[in-house]
């Protein structure tokens, strides 16, 4: 399922809304999550999962092709941990 398919499905289930509004709703949600992560905040959606930001220290990497060592700067990476309910559902435990 892609974002546009998600929008279509929601629009079908909410015939009283304009598709344009459904698009804005979906975009707002993901934009809000992204903005929070960019701020370094955590996003916790009980039952679904939690998004957080982890830091990766600077390290000396190696170009696997040439073997040359390069400096890899410290960086932050987004991380998602699925919520217990969703994890259980995936494994038919609910």
């Amino acid at each position, binding site marked *: 399922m*892609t974002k546009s398919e998600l929008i279509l499905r929601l629009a079908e289930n909410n015939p009283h809304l304009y598709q344009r509004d459904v698009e804005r709703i979906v975009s707002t949600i993901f934009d809000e999550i992204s903005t929070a992560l960019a701020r370094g905040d955590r996003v916790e959606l009980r039952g679904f*999962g939690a998004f957080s930001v982890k830091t990766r220290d600077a390290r000396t990497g190696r170009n696997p092709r040439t073997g040359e060592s390069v400096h890899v700067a410290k960086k932050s990476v987004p991380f998602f941990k699925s919520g217990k309910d969703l994890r259980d559902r995936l494994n038919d435990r609910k």
Partner: protein
Amino acid sequence: MTDQTVTRADLSEAVYQEVGLSRNESADLVESVLSEIADTLTSGETVKISSFGSFSVRQKGERVGRNPKTGEEVPILPRKVLVFRASNVLKNRINGEAGGEDDTDDGFSGADNGGAPQQQPDTPPPMGSGTPYRPGS
């Protein structure tokens, strides 16, 4: 900096501010979005949200684990796990680089900069305290 937690309530509030719906309906829609995604994943289908990331289900085989406390060997049954892969747009935003505004999604998705020197972000990301790693659950 802040190091706060954003919840469903904040997402509903953002939807409420952005679209002219009631607070109740905004909350319902946030819930619908999450449950549509969850249902799709439960059916085994991948969910791709451009310029955000993709969620997919991965099947893990059985393996022998060990109770770290007692050292006892226990079988870990085959199971399904949910993996999230952030898009480059999101990764860049988190590192304070000009995030692509549009859906210039994963143009080079597979290339996880294999050791390429990365530019130092102007401002180090605000991390009050590194997220503690919690093993298992």
